[in-house]
């Protein structure tokens, strides 16, 4: 089995260790003998999203980095729209999660360029929402095996994000999309947006496997993944859940 992954703008959107997400997908595929072809899409490369693309990872960055990327990526907006509508798997963290939406107003009240592909709106206001976060998973994880039903991570954002999609999780500790509705992230088809750094995937191996399985299901007749020994990851996950929830 084989997956084509586009790692988007690792040179610009690389705050808070989001590079760990690609490392995580790469290793979990390798341990199962799945071939991954990873292409880095950067400001100066001409990698295209097309029908062969199986997974897209895009991280968080500074507001200036985010503007650079949005402007650069705008030329691929319709390809991305097709990709999302055709169940393409995509993980967009923090600033990129905002960028797939309609509007993002920065702390200086400037409207930053957005891809306008999803009905998501973000406005920077008030205190930075920062710290460790635990959410209760709101996606069907029954086909991935780790018996984990929470997500842990670290969030750091001034924007308050609102939308009517299903959230990725319900906040148990921390802030999430905004400081009101206790929802974190957004799920539309196989688009996953989230504020979770940490990075999100290594300590949430069930989410990594959920994405790998969805991508494989799109091209192979498969409904389960080979089970891995995740003792180390699960301990890392649980120790943070315990620390945060018992605080």
């Amino acid at each position, binding site marked *: 089995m084989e997956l084509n992954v586009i790692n988007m703008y690792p040179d610009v959107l690389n705050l808070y260790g989001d590079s*760990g997400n690609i490392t995580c997908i790469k290793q979990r595929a390798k341990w199962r003998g799945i071939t991954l072809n990873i292409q880095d899409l950067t400001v100066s490369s001409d990698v295209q999203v097309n029908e062969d693309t199986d997974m897209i990872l895009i991280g968080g960055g500074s507001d200036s980095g985010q503007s650079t990327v949005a402007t650069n990526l705008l030329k691929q907006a319709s390809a991305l729209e097709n990709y999302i509508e055709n169940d393409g798997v995509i993980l967009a963290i923090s600033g990129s999660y905002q960028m797939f939406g309609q509007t993002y107003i920065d702390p200086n009240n400037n409207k930053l360029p957005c891809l306008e592909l999803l009905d998501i709106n973000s406005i920077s206001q008030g205190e930075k929402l920062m710290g460790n976060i635990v959410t209760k998973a709101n996606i069907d994880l029954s086909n991935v095996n780790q018996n984990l039903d929470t997500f842990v991570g670290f969030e750091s954002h001034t924007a308050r994000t609102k939308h009517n999609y299903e959230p990725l999780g319900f906040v148990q500790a921390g802030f999430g999309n905004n400081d009101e509705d206790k929802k974190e992230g957004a799920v539309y088809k196989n688009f996953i947006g989230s504020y979770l750094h940490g990075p999100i995937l290594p300590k949430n191996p069930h989410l990594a496997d959920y994405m790998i399985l969805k991508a494989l299901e799109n091209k192979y007749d498969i409904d389960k993944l080979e089970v891995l020994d995740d003792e180390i990851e699960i301990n890392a996950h649980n120790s943070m859940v315990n620390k945060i929830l018992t605080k």
Partner: protein
Amino acid sequence: MTSVNTKLSKFIGKSAYYVAKKCGKNATALPGKVALTVKSDLLLDMGKKCDKIIVTTGSNGKTTTTTLLNHVLKGSYDSVISNLGGSNMIQGVLTPFVVDSKDHYDFGVFEVDEGSIATVFEYITPDYFIITNFFRDQLDRYGETDNTIKMVHDAIKPETTLILNSNEPSLLQFDDLPNKKIYTNLEENQFSKHEIKVVENILCPNCGQTFDYDYVNYGNVGKFNCPNCGTKNHDPDYNATSINVDKGHYEFTLQNNGKEETYTLYLKGLYNVYNTIGVIAAAKEVGMDYNTINERIQNFEYKQGRMETINYKNKDVTLVLSKNPVGLSEVFTTFGYDKDEKVVMYVMNSYAPDGIDVSWIWDADFEQVAEFEGLKRFYCVGTRAEDVATRVKYAGIPTDKISVYPAKDRWDIKQAIEDIVNEDVNAFITTSFTALPETRRLLIEHKENEN
């Protein structure tokens, strides 16, 4: 004339010093803090006691640069005052003046935290300002690196001479300042790499393009050029042209003013060569001669866990602090110089001084550790031991070589240290900020028990 307030605030600060010392605390910041409550501009008076002031800031290398420069200057000058304890906010700069009460110093040599530069420069204007580098460092404290650079940039007054590493591309952001600038450089050498990790690359501050590199000495530090607008390294005033390593020490040749001089350094790590070139530039600029500088650099011995080696009967243990991806990657590279069988330990906490967010370890190059010849075991220790273990596993180190010692607090590392001390091969330990004192204390205790 010293005002009554100055005297009073120093008296109270000094009292705090003695009280803290009596209680067994390292009084590196408290006396300054207490004195500040009495007279908030005390640093203004204290700064005037120094003929010349040299300040160092940057993500990595502040403490090493300050300690080494203090040591070098003492080769020619009687009175040099410094905040050698590593406390580097305004109270840390003030504390040595409160504790020591001379009326005059030849040099004040201070390290100042990037976030405290603006406050400190309200009261003192340094003659020389060494800026080492800006790497992503505890983002949760300052926001983003660009903001940190801007804070430092905006605090600089035109009378100060800047000493800048020309290989560090983010220092291009000081180009617009009218200040006199002295640039240092380390040319391509046997340790240079020819590709940059994509996450470490930064964009040209003039046009936003990605830099091309001829060589990288570590992180994003090297010879770069912008393929779009032609921005490149500044021509150096102090240029290290060749570097050799022999039995754990470096020899390098430094060109300045048409002369070539050779220096010997016993600190490991290319980043320490960079720190040393900055120190040499400062010492030369204030008029010191080559022989004295070289002698002082050669006989400099580092303690307190900044690449410190502790010798046990049957092995050596190397201890070094690391606090951001570039620093940690370079520390691992240095560990890899030793090709024999060895064990590595990383003690990581997430208290405020460490940064409560540990996600940056994913940007550090743990993958090279998986390639180490003779890696016997990797010890993951501290309040974030499980995070380290996950990182280490994904770097490709087999799980049967990973030992995890979760700690409930910063003192809960006794078993891990005991186990690594009982190993019969050389050990390499790196720690986060708050983990360093207890790790070092336990290592020294084991060594003393050996005798």
